[in-house]
C-alpha cells in the first residue's frame, strides 16, 4: 500500500510541485510533457464528468481507478489541484490531500513571504513537511511490490 507520486498544479495549470516515492515504470517523456498531459487529461475529465453526470450537482471528479493504480484529485476553491497516484487499495487519500493542503501548503507556502504564488515551490521546509505528512498517512505503509 503505497503512494507513488504527487503533483500540485496552480490555477493556471502549471506544475508547481512534483514528488515521487516509488515509480516502477520509467518515464517515457520529460516531466514537463507529462505534467502538461496530466493537466490536459484532468481538464477534459472534469468537463466530461460534468456533461455525463445524472444529477445537476457539479462536484467534480474525485478519483479514478485502473487495475494497477488509483488517481485521486483534490481541488481547492481557488483552483489549486493536488493529484496523487497511489496503489489500488490505499485508504484515506482524500483526507491525506486535504491535510496536505491545510496543514502543509497553507502553513509553509502561503505564509512564506518568499514563496510567490505562481512559481514552483522551492522551499526545503515545505518538501520536508510534505514528505513527513505523506509517510505518516495510512495510505503509505511499507513499500509493497
Amino acid at each position, binding site marked *: 500500500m503505497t503512494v*507513488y*507520486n504527487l503533483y500540485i498544479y496552480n490555477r493556471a495549470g502549471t506544475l508547481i510541485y512534483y514528488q*515521487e516515492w*516509488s*515509480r*516502477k*515504470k520509467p518515464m*517515457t517523456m520529460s516531466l514537463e510533457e*507529462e505534467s502538461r*498531459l*496530466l493537466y490536459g*487529461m484532468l481538464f*477534459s*475529465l472534469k468537463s*466530461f*464528468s460534468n*456533461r*455525463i*453526470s*445524472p*444529477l*445537476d*450537482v457539479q*462536484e*467534480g*471528479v*474525485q*478519483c*479514478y*481507478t*485502473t*487495475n*494497477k*493504480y488509483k*488517481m485521486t484529485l483534490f481541488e481547492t476553491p481557488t483552483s489549486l489541484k493536488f493529484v496523487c*497516484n497511489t*496503489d489500488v487499495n490505499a485508504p484515506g487519500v482524500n483526507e491525506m490531500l486535504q491535510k496536505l493542503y491545510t496543514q502543509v501548503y497553507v502553513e509553509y507556502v502561503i505564509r512564506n513571504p518568499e514563496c510567490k504564488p505562481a512559481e514552483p515551490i522551492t522551499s526545503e521546509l515545505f518538501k520536508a513537511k510534505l514528505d513527513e505528512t505523506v509517510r505518516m498517512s495510512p495510505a503509505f505503509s511499507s513499500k509493497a511490490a
Partner: protein
Amino acid sequence: MHRVLEDPEQYPISLKFGWPKLSTNEKIFLASMFYPLFAIASQLSPEPRSSGIQVLETASYQLHCFQTLTGVKFLAVVDPRQTGVEALLRRLHELYADFALKNPFYSLEMPIRCELFDTHVRSALESAEKLGVANV
C-alpha cells in the same frame, strides 16, 4: 409549470426528477471523449502495464468501464452505492456476443437495433438494480 403547481385542481401531482435525456449525438460525443482519456490514463501510470480507467468516481455517480479483449468498451453510470457492476458489465458483454454479433443482419461498428438485445439488456439491468448484485 408554476401554473400547473398552483392550480389546486391538478393535485395530486407526481413529480419525477431526472436528468434530461442525452441525444444520440451527445452520447456518441461523450463516448468519444472518454476513449482518449482511458488511453491517457494507461500511459500516465506509474506502474508498468496498467489498464485504462476502470472506475471513475465522483460524489454523485460512478462510471464503470469494462474493456473486452477486442477493445469494445462497456460503460455504466451508476449510483455510488450500487454493487455488482462488474458482473453486470460482463453479462452485457455476453448479451452483446449473443444478440448482436451472432445476428447475421448486424454490421459491425453500427448502432445495435435489435429488440431481443434490448429486452435482455433491460431485464439484466432490472435484476441488477433489484438485487444490488447481478443475477447471472
